[in-house]
């Protein structure tokens, strides 16, 4: 037996050595995924039960499978999470809400929670996530004021399961707070609201039931969770003249919204160390801190934080920016989008790809000013800012706060379905982004109306009619991700006939 194990060890060594992974150099990971910082979805709409307010929901850490013990999901304590609002249309934030977190872990054990957690202050909840909110005002990109409007607020914990957290919704609702000025906030785990047949869409749009307008798609995000920040802000706190919006035509009606994440900047060479001092306390949540001078030499002034991710219109960076530019998109501001990314929207690779897969679609491939308008400038007379030299093309989620919410049922196609309160005039939770964007790229705004879609029409869970609107997350015990197929139904929008898919397209995925 001894001999056998020696032999085994030798054999293993033979594998190890020629491809050595010893300690001889520090093989730090080279990650491409950074879920704690990557923004995944941003929603901005006027809620039916809150007509005088802007409602925003922003998600991070997507696609969470609920049964993920012992590791549960939380925001990065050392990052700063932002909701940004541009009320002048120049692609620079005028109002910013900054969320920073502090997770306290009861050191008696590594467990997240034990039965039964009935309130956020329950000692059975071992891992507690606190956050604070700062409201900043900016003018032309410069910070004008900064005020902490909430501190030591509690985020709703991950839903561990029904034994530990028997009434999760009640527990989570305790995390809804109203801050000074009437700003309502909720932070915590929610059901993933995005719905898409991920497998089909990214398998070269391999539609299960072409052309995708009659159901039959697989909702690959069903049963999965995300971490969300939801806020409802009275209009007067976000418009450029600090007044409520009187009508859709009012000069203050349109605001641009996006979410972003920043992480602490770090100098490779630690200046405190070189001056023989202990490291200064970590600056938390402060901005514009000047880097200290070092040994009499001038050190470049640096912001204390660096933006690592941003997101406004769904899929814009994913579908339009080429791979080589995605990092650049994430560290730049919307104000420079026209210069940096305008050309990729004007001549979208995706249109060429769709034509390749579905020759009958015949999407225009060049000079797509209609897409620039629909996604980056806003639609004239609806959610467009005038600007000085024409409407600026900036990737913000432009919402006309004067547009009344849909009176009856919402149309999942939003504006192209005749429901002016939906995407791309803001984005509601139920807007069918994949179908809308496929149809937009196919040329809807140029009159080429093709009923393309992914066959998934709605979220697996109904949204709430009241704040925080996003559905409660699936519990760990109840976890059963991704088994929902959209039932087949009559084609919506009608017609289109069978769009034939070209066999084996040579183009790479967008």
């Amino acid at each position, binding site marked *: 037996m001894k001999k056998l194990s020696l032999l*085994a*060890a*030798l*054999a*293993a*060594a*033979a*594998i*190890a*050595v*020629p*491809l*050595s*992974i*010893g300690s*001889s150099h*520090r*093989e*730090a*990971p*080279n990650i*491409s*995924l*950074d879920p704690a910082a990557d923004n995944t979805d941003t929603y901005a709409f006027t809620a039916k039960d809150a007509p005088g307010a802007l409602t925003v929901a922003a998600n991070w850490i997507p*696609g969470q*499978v609920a049964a*993920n013990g012992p*590791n549960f999901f939380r925001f*990065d*304590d*050392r*990052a700063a999470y932002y909701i940004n609002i541009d009320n002048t249309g120049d692609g620079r934030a005028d109002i910013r809400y900054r969320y920073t977190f502090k997770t306290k872990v009861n050191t008696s054990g*590594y467990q997240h929670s034990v039965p039964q957690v009935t309130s956020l202050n329950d000692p059975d909840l071992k891992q507690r996530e606190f956050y604070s909110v700062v409201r900043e005002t900016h003018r032309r990109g410069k910070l004008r004021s900064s005020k902490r409007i909430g501190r030591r607020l509690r985020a709703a914990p991950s839903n561990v399961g029904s034994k530990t957290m028997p009434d999760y919704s009640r527990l989570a609702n305790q995390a809804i707070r109203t801050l000074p000025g009437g700003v309502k906030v909720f932070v915590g785990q929610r059901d993933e609201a*995005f719905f898409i047949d*991920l497998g089909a869409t*990214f*398998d070269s749009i391999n539609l299960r039931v072409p052309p995708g307008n009659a159901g039959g798609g697989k909702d690959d995000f069903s049963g999965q969770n995300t971490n969300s920040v939801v806020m409802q802000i009275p209009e007067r706190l976000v418009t450029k003249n600090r007044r409520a919006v009187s009508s859709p035509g009012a000069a203050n009606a349109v605001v641009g919204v996006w979410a972003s994440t920043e*992480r*602490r900047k770090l*100098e*490779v*060479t*630690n200046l405190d*160390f070189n001056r023989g001092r202990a*490291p200064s306390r*970590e600056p938390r949540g402060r901005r514009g801190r000047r880097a200290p001078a070092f040994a009499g030499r001038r050190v470049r002034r640096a912001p204390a934080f*660096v933006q*690592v991710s941003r997101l406004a219109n769904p899929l814009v960076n994913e579908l339009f920016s080429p*791979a*080589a*530019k995605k*990092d*650049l998109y*994430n*560290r730049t501001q919307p104000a420079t989008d026209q210069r940096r990314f305008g050309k990729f929207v004007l001549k979208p690779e995706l249109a060429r790809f769709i034509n390749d897969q579905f020759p009958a679609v015949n999407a225009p491939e060049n000079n797509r000013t209609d897409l620039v308008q629909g996604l980056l400038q806003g639609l004239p007379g609806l959610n467009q800012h005038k600007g000085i030299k024409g409407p600026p093309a900036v990737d913000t989620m432009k919402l006309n706060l004067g547009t009344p919410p849909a009176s009856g049922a919402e149309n999942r196609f939003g504006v192209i379905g005749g429901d002016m309160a939906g995407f791309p005039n803001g984005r509601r939770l139920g807007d069918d982004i994949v179908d809308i964007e496929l149809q937009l790229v196919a040329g809807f705004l140029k009159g080429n109306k093709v009923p393309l879609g992914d066959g998934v029409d709605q979220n697996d869970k109904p949204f709430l009619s009241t704040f925080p609107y996003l559905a409660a997350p699936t519990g760990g015990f109840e976890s059963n991700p991704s088994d929902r197929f959209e039932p087949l139904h009559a084609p919506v929008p009608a017609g289109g006939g069978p769009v034939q898919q070209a066999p*084996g*397209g040579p*183009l*790479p*995925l967008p």
Partner: protein
Amino acid sequence: MTAHRTKPILKLGSIALAFVVVLATLALANRSSNPPSDPPGRQGADLGAPPRNTEEQVKSLQRQIRADPSDARGYAALGDAYLQRTRETGDFAFYTRAERSFREAFRRDPDSAQAIVGEATLALARHDFREGLRQGERALALEPETVRPYAAIVDGQVELGRYRGAARSLQEMVDRRPNLASYSRISYFRELNGDVPGAIEAMRLAVSAGGGTSENVAFVQTLLGDLQLDAGRVSRARRAYGEALTSEPAHLPARAGLARIDVARGNLESAARRLRQVSERLPLPIYLTPLAEIEIVRGNRAQANRDLELVRAQRRLLEAAGTRTDVDLALFEADHGDPRRAVRFARAVFASAPSVRSSDALGWALTRAGNPREGLRHARQALRLGSVDPSFHYHAGMAAKALGQRGTAARELRRTLSLNPSFSPLHARRARRSLADLP
């Protein structure tokens, strides 16, 4: 997120097979151009859903490649996933798969920057630092706005001893994207420069930033534990290792970390037990050598010899395969083998990667081979950044003692023991004795 699954890293049954595979691979010398037996897919990052775990990611990429075999990005992403699988399992067969995936990506797109970064990472893992650096720079030239090539560039520069260049690249990397990858590299750079508090600060940021997989988090939590231990904070180190094992219960470096805690607390029996478990799964010199040294201190010379014999067997295989050697093996030969062979190894290592670690190994090998004058010269080179690695100071002190430089020897040996009195059970004892012996 494979955290809840604890499994032996290399199952006994599969080892014989793996051995055959390795021999076959060596014999074929990379001539095969067959596609990976199970093909690949989409960039996970694109649509927001992170893979639940790497195994699942591999499967989804394979499905995607089957659907669209022309997808260069799919193959490159699959290669990346295989690299991550190696990290998670310690099974180096995944490197071969990664290599084949990258080659398939190049057949479809010769300028795939993602695949070039993958090849760079692979070259670095195989200690071909020049090639890793070259490939990293090529990827950056192709896509100057991206961040990932910087990781390969920084790692290459650090290992080649080009510290000024590394500092510049690293600053650019973290300015572009502060995350686990860049924070953890800053931590290592600060550590090399002797700034342990600064290294701890950066590693805390890395841990907090997390990553796409629990292995990545466990990896940086373990490094944080190592730093805390080197700073003399044993209970904080213990907590960091414990957290790493919560993230990833099978994480071997964290288990080896617990053994270091045992050594610091004087519990050699438990340390030996833990290291034996670790080295049974992954018999690498970095685990076997300290294990043997603990057995020597405990008086189990026979057991120590068996452990050392394993390392020697590795060295023989390595020589037979004509593969480049590394710092650990040179140090091993210097301490427990043939010092002249150690010098030969260390010179080769130093020629290919003139880092401070290589200087240290070469200096120690020379000292042990009876050439402390040259040995001390290299030991000083190893300390040129101001590193606070106790073994660097120990090697310098012993060289100085052999040269009869009493003052230097006393200073360096005292420094060694004040930095970490339990840096190695065997050498800490020798350092104390040598200090007492000084005339």
